[in-house]
């Protein structure tokens, strides 16, 4: 579904991605793991079209989207779940949910979103930034599901969440996957990653150094944890 080929990216003079290639098949959940500064978030931003200063190919369903602006990529079914959760303070919770146009074949109706997230329903008229961190994370995920995105790009959705909320994010990703949604996930929490993902790419200094099946990550968990410095 998603194919990234020989992608390089720069911040000014500094190269942060070096010839990264990876692919994600439809219905898969794939994580990008690596230390801070390995280029995981930049890779996600390149796929979304939010990073200027890149070279290489980004293909969605065989179509080169590397030169499309971010809004067109979103309309092709990319769902953006940013690391800061992307809540709008000047929009209500309901407006945050309905801001993106529906794009995919299977958008969640608002009623279904509210059913799954009673807290969002209760606070639907409040400013989104008055929600708790966990609720804002749910809002960010619910927003792209309501939109009907086919490929979710999630940047550390579990960061700063309590174990209970991490569990909820996991359940939600499992449910999305059951409905055929594909997920590319940046994740520091290796335990969480092995719980939701099918495959993993290990990034270091802007390169993909290893592509691993989930079983392999589980068996090498101790070694990887010490490598990641967690």
């Amino acid at each position, binding site marked *: 579904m998603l194919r990234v080929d020989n992608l390089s990216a720069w911040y000014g003079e500094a190269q942060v991605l070096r010839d990264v290639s990876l692919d994600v098949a439809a219905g898969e959940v794939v994580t990008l793991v690596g230390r801070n500064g390995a280029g995981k978030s930049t890779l996600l931003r390149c796929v979304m079209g939010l990073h200027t200063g890149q070279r290489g190919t980004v293909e969605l369903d065989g179509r080169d989207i590397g030169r499309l602006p971010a809004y067109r990529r979103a309309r092709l079914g990319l769902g953006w779940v940013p690391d800061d959760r992307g809540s709008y303070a000047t929009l209500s919770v309901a407006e945050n949910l309905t801001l*993106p146009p529906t794009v995919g074949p299977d958008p969640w109706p608002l009623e279904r979103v509210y059913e799954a997230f009673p807290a969002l329903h209760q606070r639907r008229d409040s400013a989104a930034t008055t929600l708790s961190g966990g609720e804002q994370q749910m809002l960010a995920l619910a927003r792209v599901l309501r939109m009907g995105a086919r490929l979710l790009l999630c940047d550390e959705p579990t960061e700063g969440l309590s174990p209970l909320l991490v569990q909820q994010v996991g359940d939600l990703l499992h449910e999305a996957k059951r409905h055929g949604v594909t997920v590319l996930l940046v994740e520091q929490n290796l335990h969480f990653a092995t719980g939701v993902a099918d495959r993993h790419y290990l990034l270091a200094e802007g390169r993909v150094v290893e592509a691993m099946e989930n079983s392999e990550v589980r068996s090498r968990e101790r070694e990887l944890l010490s490598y990641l410095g967690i």
Partner: protein
Amino acid sequence: MTGFLQNTFNGLVSGAFYALLALGLAVIFGMLRVVNFAHGAFYMLGAFGAYVLLSEAGVPFWAALVIMPLGLGLLGMALERAVIHWLTRLDPLYNFLLTFGLTLILQDLVKSRYGVQSSPYATPSALSGSVDFGLFDFPAYRVFILGFAVLVCVAVWWVLTRTRVGMVVRAATERPELTPAFGINVGRWVTPVFGFGIALAGLAGVLAAPMRAVNPLMGADLIIVVFAVVVIGGLGSIFGSVAAGFGIGLVQAWGEAYLSDFPIVSQTIVFVVMAVVLLWRPAGLFGREEAPA
């Protein structure tokens, strides 16, 4: 008491102009991150256009009230496409140079044709009388300005808070980099929003023609106070700009009425208020600190 009410009313009328101009600046800044130093020139063009339409083509005030905002809005959109849109990628210094340069060009174009003397513009006959408020009379035209400006501000507020277009504008104003990731073509709204801000300035200009001296520098005199208003309200804050507009109108009117023995105070009171507000709330009364990029 009567005097106080009258001063208050006059303050609200000046405030109406500040509010309309500051509102336009706020929507433009919010969407484009451009401070339009040419805003006063478009206000002047609104007034001058109404004067020229009436004196040279016999077009009445009411028609000018529609024609000038529309025409200037279109001119604003053309300017945005031609030059303003380059500013987003340049150092803020160019923002100042370009829009200030536009001001000088527009002012001098008008000056070269009509000179610097003020031109009279008759109050429309339907509004030439006064309205009896019991305790005092007030010119009908000023009552009209106040009501009309409040109506425009409420309409803008309604569009911004209750419509999908307004939601998109708010989202793009708050998070310009993030919003396209949700399928919103922010660029599509930039030109109309700029045109709309300019149209508001033109509208304020037409409203000013019958009660203010119509001359090429009328905008330059006003815009300094309007910038103080925008800063007090919070740069980019829609509600802040309107509230501060009316608030500063009041402060100025009361200052002139009750501190007239201390001209140095009454003439600088707006900037004193601005300084105090900035010390207390650096982002303005209703502004929010810019999120770190």
